């Protein structure tokens, strides 16, 4: 039996008996820096993320009530700083808090929230501050790409399969298999850049046409420059609580959350066009939330490279296999469609400060659900989904949020 099928069958067998822990974990506060090239260094971004999240708690919180501090950060070489958990404690006056760093490539933010939520559910913490931070623009693009290639399998790193080229394998196969075109990939970029115009935190406030995307520089065929998310500085933080109503009258709950895994290398997958980790993670999240994909009203998904957004639609159950691109052609995932995806601008246009990305995506859905998303507010939304994946989809974290 093929590896991917074996993995899914094994997951289904184990998961059939697994029950969801029903502890109401709520998001009660947040902070979000501008994404882009920022003047602050990493400790300053970390400090601001923590302090602003605490000061934004509507009903107030004594810092000593925060008993867990999780830092999401991908690569110390980007910031020349180890022990980020302990460093973060410098900015939190809570002697009883545990603190550590989580890394899962681009899924670090989602994974940090997942771990914090699990610790709350297990009773190890009551209030967890999760802060994601990345400083990427202080090094050359060459150094940054040398670091980012590490998100692949050891074999891919050895052969020089860069992140764009790993996604290129999937993107090329998807077009051959399902009849989508470069126009479909370009539409993802066009949509997300248009959405980012309404987001003051976004790195780019510039629209592109399909032709501009299709004529942009080739990075790794068929992936072009305007399919790639940028190098970004930024921080994003949330406060999770087991007693959300104590800290805000307007909490947003994590209704369901799941993590899934696939092979590290795209080349090891029997179907490189299918994001199996996302399928596994979303199955778990839907099961815990007791909802179906057609009940989701908005989503933030991981468009590190534009073609991935289309493949993610299918793994999340928004479209049948091989039909994800039709959602774009039918305008269903546009801002004014029936399932807006990446109203924030996505990673492509909002920016991708890796360790902060997954937390920033959750903040976007938190604001949408509270009706506080400003110009980019999606009307009457009660249930939203966030998908954050690492590497080329080897790790995926899916979170369903609701009121």
């Amino acid at each position, binding site marked *: 039996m093929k590896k991917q099928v074996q993995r899914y069958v094994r997951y289904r067998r184990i998961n059939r008996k697994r029950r969801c822990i029903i502890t109401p974990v709520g998001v009660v506060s947040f902070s979000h820096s501008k994404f882009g090239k920022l003047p602050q260094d990493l400790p300053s971004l970390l400090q601001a993320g923590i302090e602003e999240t605490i000061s934004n708690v509507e009903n107030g919180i004594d810092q000593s009530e925060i008993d867990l501090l999780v830092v999401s950060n991908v690569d110390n070489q980007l910031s020349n700083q180890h022990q980020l958990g302990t460093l973060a404690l410098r900015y939190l006056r809570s002697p009883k808090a545990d603190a550590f760093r989580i890394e899962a490539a681009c899924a670090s933010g989602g994974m940090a929230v997942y771990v914090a939520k699990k610790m709350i559910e297990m009773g190890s913490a009551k209030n967890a501050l999760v802060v994601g931070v990345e400083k990427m623009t202080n090094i050359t693009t060459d150094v940054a790409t040398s670091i980012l290639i590490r998100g692949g399998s050891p074999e891919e790193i050895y052969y020089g399969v*860069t992140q764009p080229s790993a996604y290129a394998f999937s993107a090329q196969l998807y077009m051959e298999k399902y009849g989508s075109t470069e126009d479909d990939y370009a539409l993802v970029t066009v949509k997300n850049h248009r959405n980012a115009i309404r987001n003051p935190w976004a790195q780019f406030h510039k629209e592109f046409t399909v032709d501009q995307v299709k004529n942009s520089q080739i990075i*790794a065929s068929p992936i072009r420059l305007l399919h790639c998310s940028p190098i970004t500085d930024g921080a994003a933080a949330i406060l999770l609580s087991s007693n959300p109503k104590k800290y805000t009258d307007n909490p947003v709950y994590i209704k369901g959350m799941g993590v899934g895994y696939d092979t590290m290398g795209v080349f*090891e997958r029997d179907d490189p066009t299918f994001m199996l980790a996302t399928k596994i993670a979303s199955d778990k999240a839907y099961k815990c939330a007791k909802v179906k994909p057609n009940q989701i009203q908005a989503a933030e998904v991981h468009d590190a490279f534009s073609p991935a957004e289309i493949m993610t639609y299918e793994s999340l159950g928004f479209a049948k296999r091989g039909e994800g691109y039709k959602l774009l052609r039918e305008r269903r995932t546009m801002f004014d469609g029936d399932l807006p995806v990446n109203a924030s601008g996505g990673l492509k246009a909002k920016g991708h400060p890796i360790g902060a990305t997954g937390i920033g995506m959750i903040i976007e859905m938190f604001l949408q659900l509270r009706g506080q998303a400003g110009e980019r507010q999606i009307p009457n939304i009660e249930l939203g989904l966030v998908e954050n994946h690492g590497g080329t989809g080897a790790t995926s974290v899916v979170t369903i949020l609701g009121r």
Partner: protein
Amino acid sequence: MRNTLAKLIAFSIVQIAPSKFQTPYVVAIVDGEKGERILVKIKNEYFGLLRAGLEGEIKEESVDSDKFNFFYPKDKVKSDSERI
């Protein structure tokens, strides 16, 4: 090591990469004789021939101190051997 028959599944011509890799270069996924997925490099002279389903052979070769699997398109392998 014996050469292995293989079929090209997907490839990418990499134009931008960390400076330790000399661009442009081709990386690809092929299916081996037993259906196993193998990561390969393809020499730049075969750019024009590349398409999914292309058949060929995998040969292990040394480049500096590293060893890589290289995919050679079938027609090219044949014409090379005829020349010899």
